[in-house]
């Protein structure tokens, strides 16, 4: 009986890991694959390694929170399998409706539902986690705004990320020992930027492992008849890797493809910010969604850029009395400079405002989903474990 339940649990864990692998490989490597810097297969292989690395090290802190912190009792194996079932259900909903349901939040919700049903919920821990869930998107947004408003265009003017034809490196066999040298069209700057892109991808893969391996592994750990932590991490990594090699090919074109719609440089800023937030919180044992941090940083960069202030030079050129903060206004200023209309001329008839893209209502929609996802999993898990108390 125990073996059967364990088998079901491992299968459920693999299903969860497989889906996580698909989506997180997509956002982590989508931009680099889109830019032609790595192939999809290389991406999946590197992903698997760094996910394991992240899960094995920092991920353990999150695993402790999930398996021991949120509920005061020891998880039973059947309860763990039940929790995995609700995580999987959340993913199914996400896949069918194409909405980003954050796995880490669904997981915490399901375990909290179990805690509520059995009266073992550790309110202090859950309050701490929810506080971070509120603070994190704000931090991501704020950093994004700073980057978009002050840093991005400055860096963009100085750094060119490009991919030339031919191999990046080749082996120079003229000497006694073959030494790698630059490929046919490679410049030093290209080599450096390619390496930077790879390193940032690995960093994000690490943070994905730290935050996501516990979702698939934790429910099976910490139970009398479950798996030990090391085995569970290996199983979860293999499942994530499997997802990375298979369905990630599709998600790189959808979720990851969207991230690669934005210039690679901006994508790199987003990746570094989101990975850092996710790694730090995972290190502190707070389950956090990498996707959430990513989306908020992207929105922040766009918003920050859209509200960029007019520079002194432009303001002087047109003698603006009330510098407007919308990007549309800046564009109009620049255009006005080209055709040089007199001061007081009517504005161009149609001015597009970048700010219109980042209306607060757009963000409210995301936040709504982040509230609905974990709430639904809490309610469903609570109902499930209340109706079937024997399972917990």
């Amino acid at each position: 009986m125990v073996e059967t339940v364990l088998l079901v649990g491992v299968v459920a864990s693999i299903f969860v890991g497989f889906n996580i692998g698909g989506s997180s490989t997509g956002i982590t490597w989508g931009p680099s694959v889109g830019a032609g810097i790595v192939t999809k297969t290389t991406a999946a292989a590197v992903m698997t390694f760094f996910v394991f690395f992240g899960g094995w090290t920092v991920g353990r802190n999150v695993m402790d929170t999930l398996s021991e912190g949120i509920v005061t009792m020891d998880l039973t194996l059947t309860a763990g399998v039940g929790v995995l079932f609700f995580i999987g259900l959340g993913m199914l909903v996400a896949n069918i409706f194409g909405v980003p349901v954050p796995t880490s939040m669904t997981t915490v919700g399901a375990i909290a539902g179990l805690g509520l049903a059995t009266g073992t919920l550790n309110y202090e821990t859950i309050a701490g986690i929810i506080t971070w869930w509120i603070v994190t998107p704000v931090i991501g947004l704020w950093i994004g705004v700073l980057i978009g408003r002050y840093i991005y265009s400055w860096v963009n003017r100085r750094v060119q990320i490009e991919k030339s034809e031919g191999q990046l490196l080749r082996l120079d066999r003229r000497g006694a020992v073959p030494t790698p040298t630059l490929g046919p069209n490679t410049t030093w700057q290209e080599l450096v930027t390619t390496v930077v892109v790879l390193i940032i991808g690995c960093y994000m893969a690490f943070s994905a492992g730290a935050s996501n391996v516990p979702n698939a592994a934790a429910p099976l750990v910490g139970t009398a008849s479950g798996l030990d932590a090391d085995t569970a991490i290996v199983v979860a990594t293999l499942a994530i890797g499997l997802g990375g090699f298979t369905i990630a090919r599709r998600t790189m074109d959808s979720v990851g493809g969207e991230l690669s719609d934005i210039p690679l440089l901006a994508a790199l800023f987003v990746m570094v910010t989101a990975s850092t937030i996710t790694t730090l919180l995972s290190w502190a044992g707070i389950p956090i969604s990498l996707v959430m941090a990513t989306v908020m940083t992207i929105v922040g960069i766009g918003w920050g850029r859209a509200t960029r202030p007019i520079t002194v030079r432009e303001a002087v050129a047109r003698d603006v009395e009330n510098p407007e903060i919308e990007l549309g206004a800046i564009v109009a200023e620049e255009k006005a400079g080209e055709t040089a209309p007199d001061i007081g001329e009517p504005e161009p008839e149609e001015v597009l405002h970048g700010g219109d893209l980042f209306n607060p209502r757009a963000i409210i929609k995301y936040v709504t989903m982040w509230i609905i996802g974990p709430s639904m999993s809490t309610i469903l898990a609570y109902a499930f474990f209340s109706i079937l108390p024997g399972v917990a």
Partner: protein
Amino acid sequence: MLSKILVPMDDSEHAGHALEYALDNHPDAEVTVLHTVGVPSMMMGDAVSLTLEDDLDDAAAERAESVFERAREIAAERDREIETIVGIGHPARNIIDRAEEYDTVVVGSHGEDWSRATRRFLVGNIAETVSKRSPVPVTIVR
């Protein structure tokens, strides 16, 4: 007699039907096609890439060009000419904000296809929102 008609279009089939309907049923009307770019999507990729462009107006116009080209072809088949406007952000809001200046709005019943369900989920049903909030009569074309 309707003299000014707004036809919001995206790259969907129904949008084409809406324009055909407007042109066929109002032979003397002045038809304006509105296309919205930078529509909010799951990760805001489109919207953000648009703001990161140096010149927002040019970038927006460039992205709208394929839709306008198709619209002009449809119009040319009927020996008609159309005006074009680019909007950015939320399609429904763009339509509703501009609708006042027109006598009617003719919109396709469905936007993008099921494969882009995400976008539709986020944006909501555009035709429905427009029909509820538009200050002028709305025709929904299947």
